[in-house]
């Protein structure tokens, strides 16, 4: 019965998608962009100074949306923290009965600086190549995640991470307000020099914002991961 209702609902939705998508599907393959895309591609190098146009769209054209995006991520991390705080019931206990053993622990600690280095590289080259604050922050958090997976005794400096997260959020807002009181008089306006196009120190405030976003994303992810795994390890200690 359940499957039948599911198939019927999905069939109806598929019919809707087919009727809507018919125009897209039957259209000739496009050889040129519509007005918004071509306009951004034409003005982006002069306006933002970033070689990577996607980064220019995310930070320069839609910087305010990116602030909202970071806020959504913060709300999600907050919800995970509050919900995981109440879990003390031996739920992930089996997962944490074994630590990884010496080889995995030493290996993960040896890997940590290299993974962080790759993350920092991706963050700093966000305006030149694919990457930027969001993927780079995730990679930095992954380094800590590998260590958490192998050793159950690792204690994460929660206070330091929370301070970093708060400072990064406030820094993003501070850059926005600096733009508001600069000659450009708009929120998140660029006041830094654009530099030589295509070099590492270019694109004005885009690398600065992406560094802040990376700190915020990394600290939020480390927070989420440590909260979720602490639900298991705390219960383990309580059981002993």
């Amino acid at each position, binding site marked *: 019965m359940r499957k039948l209702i599911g198939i019927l609902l999905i069939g109806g939705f598929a019919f809707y998608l087919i009727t809507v998508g018919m125009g897209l599907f039957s259209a000739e393959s496009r*050889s040129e962009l519509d007005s918004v*895309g071509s306009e951004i591609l034409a003005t982006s190098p002069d306006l933002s100074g970033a070689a990577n*146009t996607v980064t220019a769209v*995310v930070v320069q054209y839609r910087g305010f949306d990116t602030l909202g*995006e970071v806020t959504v991520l913060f709300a999600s991390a907050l919800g*995970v923290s509050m919900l*995981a705080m*109440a879990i003390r019931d031996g739920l992930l206990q089996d997962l944490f009965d074994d630590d990884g053993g010496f080889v995995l622990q030493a290996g993960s600690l040896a890997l940590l600086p290299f993974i962080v280095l790759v993350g920092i590289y991706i963050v700093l080259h966000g305006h030149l190549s694919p990457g930027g604050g969001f993927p780079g922050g995730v990679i930095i958090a992954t380094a800590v995640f590998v260590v958490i997976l192998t050793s159950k005794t690792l204690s994460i400096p929660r206070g330091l991470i929370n301070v970093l997260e708060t400072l990064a959020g406030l820094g993003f807002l501070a850059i926005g307000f600096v733009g508001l009181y600069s000659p450009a008089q708009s929120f998140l306006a660029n006041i830094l020099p654009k530099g030589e196009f295509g070099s590492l120190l270019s694109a004005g405030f885009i690398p600065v914002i992406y560094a802040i976003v990376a700190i915020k994303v990394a600290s939020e992810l480390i927070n989420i991961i440590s909260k979720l795994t602490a639900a298991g390890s705390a219960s383990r200690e309580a059981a002993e």
Partner: protein
Amino acid sequence: MTVPQILYVSAFLLILIGLYSLLTQRNMIRMIIGLNIADLGVNLFLVTIGFVDNGSAPIFRAQAAAGPMVDPVPQALVLTSIVIGFGVTALALTLVMRLFVTHGSIDTARIRGLKW
């Protein structure tokens, strides 16, 4: 079939597969996986909208590549979409953990008040 047509069909199929598993699965972890598959389909659809024939990545280089560049706006939107998808998944998994603690099961049929 051209490349965008194949990608549109794949995106629609991914969305339908994800929604189907969301509707029919009783295990909540599988429902979250279904949600992620549908999310993936939407991302693929958005990126495909910005595709142009023989388009290259919208990054300006010293040696300019021949041909047009693809639309950067949908790609920036997909970046946002991926981040929001991550937030939703993390929150959903935590809710499932809470549900397991309070009800002892993640099967919707076994939890009173969630059966349909």
